[in-house]
Each structure stands twice: as structure tokens, then as C-alpha cells.
């Protein structure tokens, strides 16, 4: 299978998984953004919220990394800059969700 085909399949599958997660997340974000500290920590640490947020973060960064790399592919001519941009993107797409999941796991402990 061509790498581009594989990338396209990953994009479509992650997009399909992300749709309900994104809807759930944005409705809850609108709901809890002005709640008290205790209420928000309670929401983030309760199950299944904690798991859904973790999945949302993993899939949204995975999807974003794939789709933004397409933008780099289309608009950045210099190969070195493109590679550096892709590496930085992939780094943040892995590190940020991991740190956030650890943060949420440690909330309220």
C-alpha cells in the first residue's frame, strides 16, 4: 500500500471516530467553562468523562497532525523547512495529549 493511501485511510478513520467525540466535547465545554473549580475537576475526573476526553485528545491530535501535514505538503516548498515543520507538529501531537492525560489523571488526587 502506498504511504499516501495509508495516510488517507488513517485520516478518514480518525475523522469518523473524532466526529462524535468532538460533538460531545464541545457541548460539554460550553456547559462547564464557567463552572467552579470543584465542579470542573469533578467533571474531568469522573468516568466515563476522563476516558472520553483522553480519546478525544489522542484522536484530535492524530487527525490534526495528518491534516496539517497535508497543508505543509501543499504550501511549503523548501524540503528542510517542511521536514522541520512536520517533525515539530508530530512532536507536539504526541507530547501534548500525553501530558494532558497525565494532568487529568492527577487532578483531584
Amino acid at each position, binding site marked *: 500500500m502506498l504511504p499516501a493511501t495509508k495516510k488517507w485511510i488513517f485520516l478518514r478513520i480518525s475523522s469518523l471516530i473524532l466526529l462524535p467525540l468532538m460533538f460531545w*466535547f464541545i457541548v460539554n465545554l460550553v456547559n462547564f467553562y464557567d463552572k467552579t473549580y470543584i465542579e470542573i475537576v469533578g467533571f474531568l475526573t469522573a468516568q466515563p468523562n476522563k476516558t472520553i476526553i483522553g480519546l478525544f485528545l489522542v484522536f484530535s*491530535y492524530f487527525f490534526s497532525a495528518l491534516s496539517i501535514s497535508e497543508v505543509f505538503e501543499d504550501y511549503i*516548498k523548501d524540503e528542510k523547512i517542511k521536514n522541520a515543520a512536520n517533525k515539530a507538529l508530530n512532536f507536539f501531537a504526541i507530547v501534548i495529549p500525553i501530558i494532558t492525560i497525565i494532568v487529568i489523571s492527577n487532578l483531584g488526587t
Partner: protein
Amino acid sequence: MENRPLSPHIQIYKWHISSLVSISHRITGIINFFAITLICLWFAFMLLGETNYQIINNFLETFLGKFILISITWSFSFQMLSEIRHLIMDYGYGFELQKTKVTGLIVIFGSIILTILIYLFGRGFV
């Protein structure tokens, strides 16, 4: 791939609904990346305790804070509807010129309606 042609600058072509939706899809994708990162930072602030959280909470209750939240909601809504449009197109539907215009308009106006509905639903008005 070396010498791969780049996309031409967006101002070269005459604007159509489909090109507007396409470029907006990419822009909202990048906005969402930064929006989710900001939300992650917000969660990280909570780990520092209630006092630090209060600083962000005070900001979110200002006009600018609410504007940012509604903009993020719109950006997510647009991305969701545009992604559904892409998935439908992947099955081979909606490529006719008239249909691309109609589905494009559905994405544009639907994202505004969806933002209002999410806001009303999320705030418990519905």
C-alpha cells in the same frame, strides 16, 4: 517527492462556494489544533490549584473570553460538518457542480446554526 508542484496561491482562482469551504476547512483545522492546545493548557492550570484556575475563569467570563469560546464552538462545528461532507464525497456522492454548491452552503450556514444549538444546549436553554 522532489519538484512536486505546490498549490497555487488562493487568490489566483475566482472564489466559489466549494473553494471557500475547502480553504475554511483547512483554516479551521489549524485553529482547532491551537484551540485544543489552549484547552490543554487550561487543564494544566487546574493542576496548579484553585487560585490559578480563577485567573482563567475570570478571563472566560469577559466579553473576549465568551467571544473566543463561541469562535471555538463555530470552528469545531464547521470542521464537523465539513468532515461529514468529505466523508459523503468519499463514497462518490455530491460531486456535481450544483450539489457541491448546496452542500457547501449547508456547511457554511449549518455551522452557524449548529454553533447556536450547541451553545443553547450546552447552557441548558434547550
